[in-house]
């Protein structure tokens, strides 16, 4: 089954390379990886979509923690989360066919963002399922080109995703009364 993980990482040069290298090194099969800014300039956010069981998602989580620049990882699969993907689809469309494409797009609340003499670009935002459905309907028209951003995800309200190895990044008190302050060290 598909798993969606959110990773917060330090916004430093080479961090994407470290994450990608880890996936290659540990033989993890990743379906999509999206990287972008967050509300904090020093932190970037990755949304990782992978195929596998819970144990595979756990492996990705704990291995990510081996990277010094990874701050937090959670699995938002089957959790109250909003997930979105954006696609630009260039469809063959003569002036006579445009109406049909526009009609399909509007049913999916997609937009036509460019019109050329024999093609149009449809922009759609939504879950993967929604994008796949529109794509299937557009295929008979002739899909010339497509680009997708890969999934991004955000938990609703105060909820947080699953952390398979609680305390794996040392953030958790684990039921102990005292916990060492390790964020700043002055040894």
């Amino acid at each position: 089954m598909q798993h969606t993980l959110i990773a917060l990482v330090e916004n430093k040069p080479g961090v994407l390379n470290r994450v990608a290298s880890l996936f290659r090194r540990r033989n993890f099969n990743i379906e999509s990886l999206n990287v972008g800014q967050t509300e904090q300039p020093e932190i970037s956010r990755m949304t990782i979509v992978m195929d596998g069981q819970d144990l595979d998602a756990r492996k990705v989580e704990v291995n990510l923690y081996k990277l010094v620049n990874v701050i937090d990882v959670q699995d938002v699969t089957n959790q109250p989360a909003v997930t979105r993907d954006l696609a630009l689809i260039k469809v063959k469309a003569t002036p006579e066919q445009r109406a049909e494409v526009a009609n399909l797009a509007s049913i999916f609340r997609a937009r036509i963002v460019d019109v050329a003499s024999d093609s149009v670009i449809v922009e759609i935002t939504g879950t993967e399922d929604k994008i796949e459905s529109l794509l299937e309907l557009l295929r008979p028209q002739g899909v010339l080109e497509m680009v997708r951003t890969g999934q991004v995800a955000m938990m609703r309200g105060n909820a947080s995703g699953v952390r398979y190895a609680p305390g794996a990044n040392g953030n958790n008190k684990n039921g102990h009364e005292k916990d060492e302050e390790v964020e700043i060290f002055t040894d």
Partner: protein
Amino acid sequence: MRKTGAEILWEILTREGVDVVFGYPGGANMPIYDGMLSYPVHHVLTRHEQGAAHMADGYARASGKVGVVMSTSGPGATNLVTGIATAMMDSSPILAITGQVHAHLIGGDAFQETDVTGITLPITKHNYLITSANEIAEVVREALYIARSGRPGPVLIDICKNAQIEQVEYEYPENITLPGYKPPAHAPVADLERAAELIVQAERPVILAGHGVVMSAAVGELAEFALRTDTPITHTLLGLGNFPSTHPLSLGMMGMHGSAESNLAIQNADLILAFGMRFDDRVTGNLRNYAPRARKIHVEIDPSEIHKNIEVDVPLIGDLKTVLTELLPMVPELSHDAWREQIEEWRSESNERDILAWPDDGKLYVAHVLHDLWEATVGDAIVTTDVGQHQMWTAQYYQMDKPNRLITSGGAGTMGFGLPSAIGAWFANKDKEIWTVVGDGGFQMTQAELTTAIQEGANIKIALMNNNFLGMVRQWQEFFFDKRYSAVELKNPDFVKIAEAHGLNARRVIEPRDVPSAIEFARSTPGPVLIEFRVEKEDSVFPMVPTGADLDQMIRRPKRRAKVHQ
């Protein structure tokens, strides 16, 4: 105060207690070498960068401190790769500082430019590329902390030449923030309680004690736990010495060349307590039938090791010393008399068949040498090894009673590790007796460091086991390839002359009766000494679990004219 990048590097290193570094200068690190002259640091000039990396590793393992190695860019840095990978596999804290071409030349294929951070990404715990002197102070502090904390490991800093030369305002960075790096300490209370329950229920428990015991300084806690719960201990190769091997609760080493009683105990146990070890394939054999009757508790600081090879019932992610300290009050005093008796039966049968029974036919076996060496040094020397048969025999015959005594390349299996790591260990313990046990194959890979030993006056003793074969490969070809020997015979140089040419005292031993006097000669002669032992050519290590076989499916020593040597 304004300082150059090179001066800032040495300021931080010396302030953090670094007083010896191993390395090799070159074009891209000359400002660092120039800066070094003003600081109280001893530099060990090696003959090859790989030797320098292994020395830093040996120093780190013998001292518990971070070992520092330096090289220039390009080939200097790539020569470190084997040493860094060796440290990575065995979680050894070394800091590699490499020179890099000017920042404005990066990416342009300049002379001696290599993408060193790219090459070492998968074999370091973390690495840095520094392009400006402003970054050096914080990065060096971070690097030393990362190398030695949590699960230790190698860290590399690649410093561009311009960053070494630039002058910037310097202030010691008191506080450093690493938002994504927080080594876990405490395991969850609920998991500790669950573990205690399993421990109380168990009838046939066994502790698998690994390198983590030593690195977490949990030797005392391990002993207290084992004695209180009356639980036998078997060791990984790197865990030897974390509990006295001569204690009745110790079963010796586990795994491919482990003792039969260790492997039988694991396969028949109803509870496995894995302390700071990682279920490497060399200790598990066939994973599908590993410890089939046992529930498993795994105490480990690196969460990625949990469920990696073996799915466990209770993972305790945390620092071993902390976890054991918190677990100890939860378990009562226990005894497992029936289980201990069963294990003693296996042990005495195995003593007759395998490890303590080598043929008594007048020929010289490695076992003789190691047994005599162990007796002569009262088991208290630091022993480093290369990789192969002699390494396994060292693990079997040199009974380690104290931690940080056996220094060997376990995970990576790096030939050529023995001699340089012994030199490194000597810098950490100049008052201790240091031996390196090497084979004729591996020794020749880093033989050039004999000169380094002489130049530094390193008081190390080399026991060279010469069988004119790459012994372990030969053994595999004998067992698994119908004795079709392929590229394993060595036509060797005269090792005594080689040693003497470098300035060492050296002797050759052919007869078993000459072993004790040769060892005594080495021990009583100051400075580096080499003893070449001409050992039986086609001896094999027993017992042996063939690759992929179940752990209790061991090839045992054929019953020849075997005699028990106690």
